Every structure is written in structure tokens, then in C-alpha cells.
């Protein structure tokens, strides 16, 4: 599991310079969230699902499915209850019209929401660990340092909590039956760890200043270099983003739900225009094909 994630950081989209990959992923997210066109959203959703399955395996992805379905059902039913627009009345609930169009709108909204969730999840998996530090560090070096220090602190605190807990248990304070006593004991252990770590951090801050921290402007060391592949990737991504944005934003390809569901152009025209969008969404697969280690 861990091995897979480590590999992920280095291959396919993870191989690309984090800044380029981040730009691509953010654009994909925007392209997903700025449209209510069911055809485009299905494309984005399909791309998201297949890439997630590709990088995390079907068995792990399966755990997401109930949640995605739940989102879909909630938005569909929710919109049917809230919105009463639409020509096709299915039935009346408490004197309110429940329409087919409202249901459809809710359903597409649910799909959009699910797709957006998947793209966020992909971003979180690709831009992970050191790449976060790098992304922040290159914008604001101090911010990057704070994140790095936090990432250093978490495992250290966990280790210390173990030590403190062992010492407390061996003082006979392990098994309290009363919930209040247990909470009090936990609070005690936590407070030991915090004051212990604060005391030690004085030492750390001394070391930081002997290493020149705070003597002026900092630079930021980066493990990532801008490769020709990154430039190519970014160029292709941006080039494909143009037709994709046109189909998303242009009035000609607008879809409307009320009073009845329909589109400004024929679905055939729409399908032709969406080719760019489709390719954009499947770029990660192409990247997987090109940037692998063997």
C-alpha cells in the first residue's frame, strides 16, 4: 500500500513537476465545477473514476462507491424537495410540485459533486508529502518551513506520547474503569507531552538561530527541477484547456433544465465540441503511458 503511494509520487502525473501537475489538476477541477452539462460531467466523472482506480486499485476504490452514491441520492432527492420549477410534474408533496426537471438537475449536480470530489482526491494523492512543502515553500519560504516543521513534529509527539503512556501505566495508572478518570489521565499524559515538547523546542530554537535562522531573507531549496517533459506537459495541457473552456463557458453550448431540459445546440454538435474536453480529462492516462520507469 505504502509502496504504491511512493511509486505514485514519481510516475505518471507524479513524475511531472509539482507546479505543472498542480496547474493541470486545478484546471480540471474548475472545468468540472463550472458546468452543469451532463455530457461533460459524465466525461469528467469517468476520467476521475478510471484514474482513481488506476492509481489506487479497484479494491481500495470500492470503498468510495457507497459515498459517491450517497452524494448522488442526497442531491437528487434534495433538489426535488427544494426546487419546484419544471414542466413535468411527477406528483405533489404537501401541495408542492415535485418535478422531473428538478430531479434531473439534482442528479447532474450530484454527479458534478462526485467528480469534483474525485479530482480533489487525485490532487491530494499526487501533490503529497514533500510536494506540499515545496508548493508552499516556493510561494512563501517561511510557510514551507512551518509545514515541514509540523510534519516533523507529528511523529515526534506520537513517539513521546508512547513513552509518557508507558511510564504512567507502569505507575499503576493504566486501567481506570471510570470514564472521567480515564479522561483525566489522558489529559495528564497529553499535558506532559506538550510541556516536555515546549521545553525542548527552546533548545530547537537555539539551534535554529545558530544555523542562521532569522538573519535575513531565506531561500528555498527545491528537490524539483523544471524538465523539458514538464514544459511539454504544461503546453499540451494549456492548449487542450482552451477548447475545453470554450465548450464549458460558451453560451452556444449551454444546457438548461427549466422549464424543460434541453440544450442550445444539437447533441451531435455538442459531442463534437466536447472532444477537447474529453482529451483534457484523460491527460493523466497519457502521462501514465509516457512517464513510467520501465
Amino acid at each position, binding site marked *: 500500500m505504502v509502496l504504491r503511494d511512493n511509486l505514485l509520487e514519481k510516475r505518471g502525473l507524479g513524475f511531472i513537476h509539482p507546479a505543472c501537475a498542480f496547474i493541470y489538476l486545478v484546471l480540471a477541477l474548475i472545468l468540472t465545477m463550472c458546468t452543469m452539462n451532463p455530457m461533460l460531467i459524465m466525461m469528467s466523472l469517468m476520467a476521475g473514476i478510471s484514474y482513481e482506480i488506476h492509481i489506487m486499485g479497484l479494491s481500495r476504490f470500492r470503498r468510495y462507491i457507497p459515498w459517491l452514491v450517497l452524494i448522488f441520492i442526497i442531491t437528487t432527492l434534495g433538489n426535488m424537495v427544494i426546487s419546484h420549477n419544471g414542466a413535468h410534474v411527477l406528483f405533489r408533496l404537501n401541495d408542492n410540485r415535485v418535478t422531473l426537471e428538478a430531479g434531473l438537475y439534482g442528479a447532474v449536480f450530484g454527479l458534478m459533486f462526485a467528480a469534483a470530489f474525485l479530482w480533489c482526491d487525485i490532487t491530494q494523492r499526487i501533490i503529497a508529502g*514533500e510536494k506540499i*512543502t515545496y508548493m508552499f515553500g516556493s510561494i512563501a*519560504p517561511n510557510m514551507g*518551513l512551518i509545514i*515541514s*516543521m509540523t*510534519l*516533523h513534529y507529528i*511523529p*515526534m509527539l506520537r*513517539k*513521546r506520547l*508512547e*513513552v*509518557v*503512556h*508507558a*511510564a504512567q*501505566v*507502569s*505507575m*499503576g*495508572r*493504566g*486501567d481506570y474503569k471510570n470514564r472521567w478518570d480515564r479522561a483525566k489521565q489522558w489529559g*495528564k499524559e497529553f*499535558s*506532559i507531552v506538550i*510541556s*516536555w515538547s515546549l*521545553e*525542548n*523546542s527552546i*533548545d*530547537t530554537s*537555539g*539551534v*535554529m*538561530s*545558530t*544555523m*542562521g*535562522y*532569522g*538573519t*535575513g*531573507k*531565506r*531561500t*528555498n*531549496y*527545491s*528537490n524539483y527541477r523544471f524538465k523539458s517533459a514538464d514544459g511539454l506537459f504544461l503546453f499540451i495541457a494549456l492548449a487542450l484547456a482552451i477548447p475545453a473552456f470554450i465548450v464549458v463557458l460558451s453560451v452556444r453550448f449551454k444546457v438548461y433544465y427549466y422549464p424543460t431540459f434541453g440544450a442550445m445546440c444539437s447533441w451531435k454538435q455538442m459531442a463534437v465540441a466536447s472532444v477537447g474536453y474529453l482529451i483534457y480529462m484523460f491527460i493523466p492516462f497519457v502521462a501514465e503511458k509516457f512517464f513510467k520507469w520501465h
Partner: protein
Amino acid sequence: MALIRFENVNFTYPGAENKALDNINIEINDGDFVLICGPSGCGKTTLIKQLLPEICPYGHREGRIVYYGLAHNPDVYDGQNKGCDLDELSPRDLARTFGFVGQNPQNQMVTDKVWHELAFGMENIGTSQEIMERRIAEICEFFGMQSWLNKDVASLSGGEMQMVHLAAVMVMEPRVLILDEPTGQLDPLAARNFLDMLARINQELGTTIILVEHHLEEAYAMADMVVAMDEASVKCVGNPRDVAGELGFRAGLPSALIIAKSVLDGAGEKMPVNLIDDLPLNVAEGQKWLRRLFHERTSRSTHEMVAHTADRQDDVSIDQIQTWDVVLKTQELCFAYDEGKAVLQDCSFSIFRGEIFTLLGGNGTGKSTLLKLLSTTLKPAYGTIEVLGRKLGGFKDSIQLKRKGDKTPLGYEGMVLLPQDPMALFTEITVWDELKEVLDGLPYSFDEKNGLIAGMLEQIRLTGYEKRHPYDLSGGQQQMLAIGKLLLLKPRIILMDEPTKGLDYDRKIALGHMIAELASEGISFLIVSHDIEFAARFAHRCGLMHDGRIVAVDRAKSFFAGNSFFTTAANRMARRYFPEAILPEEVIELCKKELVE
């Protein structure tokens, strides 16, 4: 050529009557390996902190510290270098010039990855990406740490952390490397590696090194110049071999040197000059020195001397120990974190009442896992632990215990654990409250509690410190306070995790005497440690942990006498003549006996 000169430097802490540094005049040459030694509280750390204004404690300083190494000073190489006052250096210049390595490896780690740790100092002084990449690559070559580069700092051992910090300091190319007891928290092997790296840095890069150290067994012979301090002033300065005879203290010096000096002091008649002039600084030199001593003094061969063995009055035979009550017994303990890689296998041993048992062994042999099993934070995969006749461990057992209304054998009147870092026990804001906290919920009246606390303060020699914050105590006092907390629980067994870590020689001895005293009152000790000298001096029995089991258990003396590598320096030096002598005193005594005959 002088690089740094202290001119009549005095330093007084605010509110203190005595000076912490009294008229210091020393000159440190460019490229020298300088060792600053002396008993605790003699001002060693205060002295080196004068070179590090960023972390120098607040106080009043008089005198001048002159630095001659400013690269942009055109006078540097034409013999007219007047140097500049240290205070004139900018913070950035100071950071570039003086690298600092302190005692606690964990506290010196700032970031989450090793590469970031290496880059941290250079980032701070605004180095460009190209130069940083180049320097990091170079330093990885020098330290041989390429494979560490992408590791999480949290996954490193203490010795590795210290090495990473040293690399992170060296990558800034300091002129002077200042180290304050850098090996205090390391196990002997890591300490050795660290010192070897210092020697390489000094010899191959020419970096000036100023090292403050208590434990001088290895470090002493490495230095070009020794500065011996006592009572805030410098007592003698010079080449380690030259000043060896003048040093006013013995604590922490190489065993060979201690033995040679003591034998010479004790010999009433005049000794051959070459024995006096040529004091041994390490084990090999010590062996030669002994050979020469006995060759010149007596004509007998080594075979005749083998018969002599040292007698310790307090020695208890192993048969005697085994008649004592068993208080802690483990049987066939097995444990693994990952499947297929056993950390403990068939680990069985017993601890007897009033016994000091020291468990030695390197990192990763399963010592700390054993402690976790004993303190029930981990459950054994197989095997049983019996504490004071009650079973410990398995889930079923603890349920049964509760049903019977029996209390767990941990804590009050049972078994307790002293963690490696005493701070892991402190919760309160004064020493008094700290001790009082232990008695909460125990069946004592208010007056009884106060009596117990006052008595304990006396026992741990902290009377007068009641109102202090535990964190304001010295390392040794913190250790004592932690022990005091545990003693209030009237324990029958005390588990100790590296109790001598970071303590100087005198505090170690004081701790050892306290443990011995408590043991004679019937408390049993299981001490997990790397400290061979401590074990040799105070333990009744020693065990060697290897590959998840205890491979050798014996009376301390026979244990070390039977080992060839894993034994004290004094024993290694003199084993050809006195195989059973494991402490310097014993060797000295036997030498004297031999000389008299």
C-alpha cells in the same frame, strides 16, 4: 596562527556572586582540535557559548574575544592581522563562521526530511539553489549518507540524527565547529562513529574544532590541545600528552591514563623516567605501558601473575543470588512488529529480590521492546511474564485480575518504569507538587503525605528545591526527582531505561550508589543500558541481549572477564595480567600489590 583569542574574559550570571568565567586567556589556533574538559559546573559550556551570541545565556561579560578569520579582511595573511571583536560580526557572519552541535539529537532536528535538514542552514543564509545542490551532494559524499537523503527524520536513530545535524552544520562550511557534549545521548558505537567523523573533518577539511566533553575515553587522545578547566578558570592548556600529568581531576579520563597516573602516584620510590613521561592515552598504549612497568620492575613472566585476582568485598556469588526470592520472571517471550521478523524470541530470565541486573546490548537487539512488554504497552505474542507471583500481560489475565479484585502488579508496591528522559514523568510546576501528585489517591493522611514528601526530598538530595520548577533543575537533579516520584510508590521492582545517559561521571557514581543502597533494602533493579563501566561497577549480574534473546547471563565480574570485546577499557588493557580485574581501581590495586612483592 591564532584564530580566536580570549583576552581576560570574565562572565557573571545575573544575581550570581561568583564568576562563571574567571579571567580566561586562551588562544585557539586555526585548524586545531581543541578539547575543553573539567568537572561539571566548571564553566566549560559557558565558555563556548561566548562564541555563540545567539544562544549565550544572559549575563555580564568583560574582556575581549578576538576573531582573526574574517575572509574579507585584507590583513589576514600579511602578518598584521589585528583581528576583530567578535561582537562586530553580523548574525549572518556568525552563523557562517561558527557551527554548533549540542547534546540532544532530537532537539536539533528542525524539518521532516533529511535533505531539508541539510538545506536548512543554507536556506537561512540565502544560498542559491545551484550552490545548495552542489554542497548537499558534496556533503553526502563526505558523510556517506546518500541513502538517507529521502528518509523521514523521525525514522532515524539518535546517532543518525546527530550525524545528520553535523552534516547540516558542515554544509555551511563553518571555520569553527563548536560541540557541547555531542555524544552524551548516544550509545557507545554511535559515539565512536561521531568522534571518528570529527577527526576526519578536522584532518581532511582543516576545520577548527572546539569540543566540550565529559566522557574522554576516546576523545582525549584525539585532541591537539586540551583546555582543562576548574572553578571557572583555565587550569592548564597544552598537548594532551604533555598536560596528562598535570590534570587535577580523574573523572572521565581514559582508563589507561587513570591507571598509569594512580600507579605512579602510589609508587613511593622513583619510577623510570620513560614511564612518567610516556603516559598511555588508549588501551593499546596502556598495554605497552603495563608491559614495560612489569618488565622493568619484576623479572617474572606473565604466567605467574595470572593467579592474582581482585577481591571485591561486596561481591555476591551467583549461587547466593539464586537463593533469593524471584520477583520478576519471564518465560519464552516472543514478539514481532512485522510478521516474519521476530524482535524477541524465547526470551527467558529471572530477577531476584534486591538484585541489580543490567541488560546490555546494541541497538535493535530487542531491549526496548522487552521494556515495553514489561510495562504492558505491548502484549507478548507468546510467553508469560510473572511479576511478584502475579501474571502480567495477556488480555485474559487482566480480565481475571479485575474479576478477582486483584490489583495490577504495576505501580504502587509493584513494578515501576523510569523512562529514559525524566521529563516524561513531570506534570506539575514545583518539585513539591510533583512528589505530592504521586500520593494522590493513596491511603495516607495529609500529615503522613507531607512527612513522606519531606523525607523523600532529603533522600534524593533536593531539600531546598521544593519551590523550583522541575524543568529548572539540572539533568542529574531531574533524574533524582523522577526516581523520587517512583520511590514514593514503594516499588518492589524498578525498570530503568538508560539511566546514565547524559550524566557526567560524578552523577553516574552518585546514581550508582543510590541504586546499590536501595537494592540492599530489597528493591530489585532491571537496568537496560549501554554503559559498560556503570554495569561493571554496580550490577550484581549482567546479561547480554542479542538477536531477541539473552545470550549470556553471569555475575558482573565473570561476565566481563569472560567477554573479549564487550568489556571495560581497564579490563581490555590489563587482561593479560589480571583477567578478572574489570575496574580501574582493581587494576591499580593489583598493580600496586605486584610492585610491592
